C-alpha cells in the first residue's frame, strides 16, 4: 500500500458564484499541501469575461509553483464531472457543499450526492472554504469493520500529516445489531454492558493492528485517540465529529447502493444531508 501521495491529480468543478474566489483559494491550498496537480473544470460555455475573471482570481493564489490547468466543457454538470474523473485519471474530486440541505437546496445537494455515489475516485466535500488558511487541527476517521477501512485510515493519516493536524481520532461505531441482547431489565442490562466492553476491546485491538501498518513518520506529532460510540452507523460519526468540533471527517466510500438504500437513507446518506465538517470520502482508484 503506497502512502506516498495518494492524491496526484485533484479536480475541482467550479461555477461562477459569489464564493468562487474563496473556493479556488481553498482548493489550491489543499492541492499544494498534497503536492498535487489541480484541474479546474467549468461546465458551461467559455467566454472572455469568464476567463478574465478566473485568471484574475488565480493571480491571488498563494502557492505560485502549483500546477493548475483550466478546462471548459459543456453538458450536464454531474455527467461531465464523472466522465472527466474517469478520463483524466483524477485521484480526488473536490466539491463545495452546503452544510444543511433544505428543500430548496435539495437539487444542489443531490448533485453532490449523486457524484459521491458514482464517482470512481475519492471525494472531498468542503463546507466552509476560507480565503485565509484555517489550520486543520482535528481529523476524525471511521474505524468500521470493513475491508476498505485500513485504506481509509491510512489515507486519514496521510491527510493529517499533509495538513499538519494535531489530533486524529479513530471512531469505532458499535452497532446495535452486534449487541444481540435486548435490554429489558436489570439482568439483560448487565449482560449488555459486559458485551459492550468486550466489543470495545475487540474493536480496539483491530484498530491497533491497522495502526501497525502506518509509516512512523506520519505518527509523529500526531495525537491518536480511539473512541467507541454507540449510535446509528454512518450517522453517529457525523454527530460525533460535530460534538468534538473536528475539522475533517474521513469515511469509507459507500458500497454500491440499491434502490432500497435510497428510499431508506443510511450510512453516508445521513452525513451528506447534514454535513458537520469537511468530509473526505476515500475510494480506491482502480
Amino acid at each position: 500500500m503506497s502512502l506516498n501521495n495518494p492524491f496526484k491529480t485533484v479536480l475541482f468543478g467550479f461555477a461562477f458564484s459569489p464564493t468562487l474566489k474563496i473556493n479556488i483559494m481553498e482548493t489550491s491550498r489543499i492541492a499544494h499541501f498534497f503536492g498535487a496537480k489541480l484541474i479546474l473544470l467549468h461546465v458551461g460555455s467559455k467566454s472572455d469575461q469568464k476567463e478574465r475573471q478566473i485568471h484574475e482570481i488565480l493571480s491571488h493564489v498563494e502557492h505560485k509553483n502549483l500546477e493548475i490547468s483550466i478546462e471548459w466543457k459543456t453538458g450536464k454538470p454531474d455527467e461531465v464531472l464523472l466522465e472527466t474523473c474517469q478520463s483524466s485519471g483524477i485521484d480526488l474530486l473536490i466539491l463545495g457543499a452546503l452544510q444543511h440541505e433544505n428543500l430548496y437546496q435539495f437539487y444542489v445537494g443531490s448533485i453532490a450526492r449523486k457524484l459521491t455515489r458514482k464517482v470512481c475516485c475519492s471525494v472531498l466535500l468542503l463546507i466552509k472554504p476560507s480565503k485565509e488558511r484555517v489550520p486543520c487541527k482535528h481529523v476524525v476517521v471511521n474505524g468500521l469493520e470493513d475491508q476498505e477501512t485500513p485504506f481509509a485510515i491510512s489515507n486519514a493519516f496521510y491527510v493529517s500529516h499533509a495538513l499538519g493536524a494535531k489530533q486524529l481520532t479513530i471512531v469505532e461505531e458499535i452497532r446495535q445489531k452486534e449487541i444481540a441482547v435486548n435490554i429489558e431489565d436489570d439482568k439483560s442490562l448487565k449482560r449488555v454492558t459486559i458485551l459492550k466492553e468486550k466489543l470495545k476491546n475487540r474493536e480496539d485491538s483491530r484498530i491497533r493492528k491497522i495502526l501497525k501498518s502506518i509509516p512512523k513518520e506520519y505518527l509523529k506529532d500526531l495525537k491518536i485517540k480511539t473512541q467507541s460510540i454507540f449510535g446509528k452507523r454512518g450517522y453517529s460519526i457525523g454527530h460525533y465529529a460535530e460534538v468534538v468540533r473536528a475539522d475533517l471527517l474521513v469515511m469509507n466510500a459507500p458500497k454500491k447502493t440499491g434502490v432500497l438504500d435510497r428510499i431508506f437513507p443510511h450510512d453516508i446518506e445521513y452525513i451528506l444531508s447534514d454535513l458537520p465538517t469537511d468530509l473526505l470520502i476515500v475510494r480506491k482508484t482502480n
Partner: protein
Amino acid sequence: MTPKTNHNNTIIKELPKNFFSGFVVSLIALPLGLGLAIASDAPPISGIIAAIVGGVVVAILGGSHVTITGPGNGLVIVLLGAITTLGAGDLYQGYLFTLAAIVISGILMLLLGFLKMGRLADFFPASAIEGMLAAIGWGIFAKQFHIMIGHNNEHGSIVKLLAQIPNGLVDLIQNGSIEEMVAAGIGIISLLIMIFYSKLRNPYFQLIPAPMWILILSVGFSYSFGWLRLPFPMDSSYLISIPENVLSNLAFPDFSKILQTDFIVSVFAITLIASIESLLSIKAVDKLDSQSRRSNVNKDLKALGLATSLSGLVGGLNVVTVIARSSVNVNNGATNRSANLFHASFLVVFILLFQEQLKKIPLAALAAILVYTGYKLATPKTFRKVAKIGKEQIVIFLITLLTTLFTNLITGISVGILSTMVIHMIINKSSLLFLANVFKPNVLLFQEHEEKTYYISVKYFCSFLNFYRLKNKLDAVPEDQNVIIDFSVCSFVDHTVMEGLENYMDTFSKKGGSIEIVGLDKHGADSKHPFAIRKILPLETLKPIEKYFTRRQASLKATALEYDWSYEAKKSIKTKFLSNFIFFKTREISYFYNKLIDEKDNCSVFDVEFTEGAFVAKEVVKTTIMYVALPHQLPIFSLDKEGLLERIYKLAGFKDISIKNHPDFNRRFFLSGEKKTEIQALFHDDLIFFLESNPYYHVESNGNSLLILKKERLLSVQEIKAMIYFGQQLQKLLKHSLVV
C-alpha cells in the same frame, strides 16, 4: 452458597410480607372489581374474574415485580362504549360481544409484547395523556354520580350526564322515593368515608382500607334490618347481582360480530387503552419499588395479553396493570410477584365464602367509591399542575379532554397528539425542523475516556415523537454511572422529554449514578417549571439569561450555598481579566455567566462563551472554567496534556520545560513557559505528585492568577465540584511552594 438457592431463600423469607400485602390489596380489589364492572355495565362478577385471572397469570409469567393486575379504570369508558354499541340496546348480549373483543385484544397485546412494543406508551405526549385520564375520570364521575344518588337509569353521553347532575339532585330532594332516598343516603355517606378516610388518623380504623369499610358498613346495614325483623327498604335493582353459583354460571364470549366495523374499532380501542394504562402504570410502579428494579415491560405485556384473553374466555374484563392497587401493594411491604398471586387467591376465597353477603351490597355504595376514583383523575389540582408547566400544555390538555368528552377516547388522544405537534410547530415557527428530522437518528452516546462518564448529545429536536431514541440510549447505561446529556445542538426540547428525563434522574440517583443536563441555558422557556418546553431563542442575547432558570442553574445555586460562595446567573461582558491568558489569545470571549464566586479565596467558577476562528469558520464554544486570583506573583506558565495547544504557546515564545527526576510527569504533561528556572522551582515534588494523581486539567498562569479548564464543553455540577476541589488544592500547594 450459590446465588440460586440464595434467591429461593429470600423468596421464602419474604412470603409472609407478600401474603399480608396481597391480603390488604384484595380488600380494595374486591369493591373496586365489582364497581368497575358495574361502571362498564357488565355483570359485577366480571371485574372479580379479571382480577383473579390477572393475578394468577401475571404473577406467574409477568416481568414486573410489585405490580397488581386486574380491571382498570381507564378501560371503563371504552368497555361501556363497546357494550352499549355492540349490544344495540341489549346490555347482556353487548357484554358477550365485548367479551369476544376482549379475547382478541388480549391476543393483540400478546403480539405487542412479542414485537417488543413496550415502547408504545412513549409516543404519547404527557399532557395529552393527562387530558385523556381526566376525561376518563369525568366519564366515570358523570355516570356513577347518578347511581350514587339512587338514579339507576340515567343514560347518555358523558357531557349530557354531567349536565344532568344538578337536575338529579333537585329531583331527588323534590320527589325522590324512599328507596332512592335510602340509596342516596348510603351513597353520600360512602362518599364521605372515601373523602375523610385519609384524614382520620386512628390506627385501628386505618387497618381496613376505605372501600372495604364501605362494603362492611353497607352490608352490615342491610343485615341490621334482618336482625330487627324489618322489611329491607330497597329491592334487588338497587343491589348488585351475583350469580348463585359463580363457577357454573360463567359467561362465554360471542364471536359472531367479529368482522363488523364497530367490533374491530372496539378491539382497537380496548387494546390501545389497556396497553397504555398498563405501560404507564408499570413505569410508575417501578419508581415506587423500594429496590428500584427495572421491569421487563415486554414480558409483562405478554403476560397481560394472555391473562386478558383467558379472562375474556370465562366472562371477565380486561386485565391491566393498575397503579392505585399496586401502590397500596408497595406501601404494605410487597417485594415480589407473589403478592399479586395472594391478592387473587383472597378474592377467590371472598367470592366462595361470602356469596350471600356480597349480594347485599348496594349499588350506591360502589358508585360512591367510583365517584371518588373518577374525581381523583381530574381534580382541580391536575389542571393547576398542567397549567404551571406552560400555557401550551394546558391548551393541549384541554383540547384532549374536551375532544374525548364530546367524541371518544381514540379520537380524543389522536387529536391530542395532533394538536401537540401543531403547537410545537407554531412555537418553533417551523414545520421543517420536525418534518425533516423526525426520522433521523438524533442521539449520540459515547463514554468519555478519562472519567468514564457517559456523554449523550442530542441534535435537531427532542420531543415525544423521538424521545424513544434518547430513552433507548439511556436504558443502555447502567444506573450507577454518571451521564451528561448535552442539548446545546438541539433546538427544541418538549415537556414530555423534560418530565421523562426527570424520572430517569430519580432512578439514577437512587442507584448511585447521576444524570445532568447541560446546554439548556440558551433555551427560552415559558415558565419556571422544570418540565417546561425549552427552545433555542434566535435573539437570545437580547434577553437576560437568568429568566430561564435551568435545573443546572438551580443546582449551581445550591452548590454555592453549600460552599458558602455566592452565585450570579447574569451574563457579563466584563471579560478583560481573562484576555491575557494565552489560551484566550486566539479566542474571542463573548461573555461569561453562571458565576460562582468565593470572596474569601478569590476563586470563581463560571461558564464562558467564546468564538474560535473568524467569519465562515467561526465556531461558538461554551466551556466552564475556574479562575483563581493569587495574592502573589507567579511565573507565567502553562500546563497542558501532550502538547495539544503546543503551537500557540510556541508562538507566545514559550519553551518546553522538563522537571528533573520526574520522567513520568514529563511524558504525560507538557509544561511550558519563559522563565525556566523559576518554573522548575515552583513545581516541587508534592505538587507534581498531586498533579499526577489527579484527573487532568489544563492549568495556566498569567503571572497573578490561574486559569483552570477541563474540557471544551460545559461541565456538569458534579464535575464543577471536582474542579473546585482541584483548584483549591492547587492553590494551597502553590502557596506552599512560594513560602518554601
